[in-house]
């Protein structure tokens, strides 16, 4: 078995250690004997429908986000939305998450259109939310990471959050929600990197990708002792520092 992972804008949108998410997906495949290929797709490179099993999109600086927003508003965004609607798993963190909503409104300059995959929108805030964050999710249990964003994301009636914030600020610091879920897509503000410390989410994405390409597949369990220790110490720090 083989999975092809598409890292959207991986050469420019890769701050805050988001490479760890791609590494986690690839390694957790390999440790189970599943071949994993990572393809980085940049601005101007077309997204071929049906070629990729799993999508990851990280965060970037404002300058990079503008070029990427223009790129994704074209046919690429259409293909990505169609893939997710057909069940393709996707994880988007921070900047990528924001551009999957309906729009991003900066302090100055024109509004950046998103692709509207999530019924959500983001407005630039003044205070930056920075710190460890713990989220309780019905699907994935305790999820831990580090948030660092000034954008406030608001969920519309058609959107479901990833979870409720236990420690930290989350989507907007007001309604206690963090992230967004739709089909097999997850958007959120958690760096850390997210997937190595939250292997339940990594395995959810891998399982969804395998099911889509190979039918009913059961993931063999892995020894997550190191992962659990790192998650526990991150949660301890979150509770102790905020």
């Amino acid at each position: 078995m083989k999975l092809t992972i598409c890292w959207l804008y991986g050469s420019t949108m890769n701050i805050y250690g988001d490479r760890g998410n791609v590494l986690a997906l690839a390694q957790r495949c390999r440790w189970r004997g599943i071949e994993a290929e990572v393809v980085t797709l940049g601005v101007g490179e077309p997204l071929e429908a049906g070629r990729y099993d799993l999508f990851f999109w990280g965060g970037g600086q404002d300058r990079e986000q503008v070029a990427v927003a223009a790129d994704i508003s074209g046919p690429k965004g259409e293909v990505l939305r169609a893939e997710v609607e057909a069940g393709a798993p996707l994880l988007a963190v921070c900047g990528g998450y924001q551009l999957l909503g309906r729009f991003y409104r900066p302090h100055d300059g024109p509004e950046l259109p998103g692709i509207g995959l999530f019924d959500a929108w983001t407005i630039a805030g003044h205070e930056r939310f920075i710190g460890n964050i713990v989220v309780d999710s019905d699907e994935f249990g305790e999820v831990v990471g580090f948030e660092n964003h000034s954008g406030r994301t608001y969920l519309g009636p058609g959107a479901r959050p990833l979870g409720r914030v236990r420690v930290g600020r989350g989507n907007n610091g007001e309604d206690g929600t963090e992230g967004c879920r739709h089909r097999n897509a997850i958007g959120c503000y958690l760096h850390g990197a997210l997937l190595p410390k939250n292997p339940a989410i990594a395995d959810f994405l891998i399982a969804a990708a395998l099911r889509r390409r190979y039918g009913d597949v059961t993931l063999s369990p892995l020894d997550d002792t190191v992962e659990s220790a790192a998650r526990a110490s991150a949660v301890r720090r979150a509770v102790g520092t905020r």
Partner: protein
Amino acid sequence: MDPRLVLAVMAGKASAFLIRRLGRGGGTAAPGVVASTIDPAVLDKLARQVDGGCVVVAGTNGKTTTSRMLAGILTQSGRRVIHNRSGSNLVRGITAAFAEQSTVTGRPRGDVAVIESDEAAFPEVVRRTRPRLVLLLNLFRDQLDRYGELDTIAARWGETLRSLPPDATVVVNADDPALATLTEGLTAARRTFGLTDGRYQLDDLPHAADAAVCRRCGAPLRYERLFLSHLGDYACDACGYQRPALDVAARDVQLCGLEGLALTLHTADGPIAVSAGVPGLYNAYNALAAAAAALTLGVRPEAVTEGLARFRSAFGRIERVTYRGRKLVIVLVKNPVGFNEVLRMLEMGGAAPTLILINDLDADGRDVSWLWDVDAERLLDVPVPLYTGGIRGDDMALRLKYAGIPEERLVPLGDLPDALDSFVDDLPADGTGFILPTYTAMLRLRELLAARGVVQAFWEE
């Protein structure tokens, strides 16, 4: 005489003395707060009286080492140097260093000042000290939670640099495309330095690298040669921008494992051979930067060579101690680029069991995501056990696991002091071990080793 200034300086000195007497640490920053409370312009007033002017050194990596190298060269040339030597590089730490190194009547005891500045504090430090020379080293990713994104810092620096008067000089690392662009068309004069050596090249832009795009037109940069992170000889095929001509170029770089380095500086006045007892290509850049600044200040080539030859490593950057019969080599790691260079040095310098200590306090950066930008995969081919410890040692263990390092080579330990004891227990009786701590883990380690009579407290150096 300015009574307010005199009082501020005296209060600063007194508080530094008291803090040390009480054993509360080096007293490297608090006296600056005390002095500025009495006279908010204390730093401005003291800096203005330094006849030979102030030099401000800024960059993500190498500030402390480069500042110390430059201060050493200037001392060698017969100048008396005021310097925030401890690496306390925010405005309060710089103020404390000036107060400490001034007479009680408010006169600085030096002909020239070498000021290491924090990236975020740079605009204020420049505004207050009105430097004659600004030395810019590099801009790498570092502590995004504290400094914000690289573009934000670059924008602030640009504003500050454009405000410099025509009699100031900016000495800049032209191998850094972001800094080269930032120093175009200034009112101040510009002098450039960089590497022209082909011996130590990277094949690819490492993951932690930033600024691989042309800052003028946004097209990707093409590198003729790449030396370290995004530092190299570059050109933009789209708009024709390229690395500026070098006023001081380093050639024939020789890295001698963990022991030291040598290189030749090429200037309009002929070649200068220099060597220094610090390892790694990043220290070659530091030596080059310090030499370029010293030459710009009119220091004779002999003093540059002599000053660098006498250089000793800055506090904690790399040091060797003997503890319970074992040789411990301690090297600070604080961001992906620096960490990668340390790993590169380990690959070249002979392998030994390694303990990595990761903390997440304010001075380390509270976000440990940066560990995922470190090319830990380099350790795959270094066949030694890897120990992890510190407040976030578990995150480091996880990083190593996902780098593909077999779990039998990983030894997760807890926080200090236990991590140190267990690590040293595991080393052979006269063996060698590397310890790679983040900043506050290094302070804690020094404290421990000092308490056990191994190293002196750093402010006594």
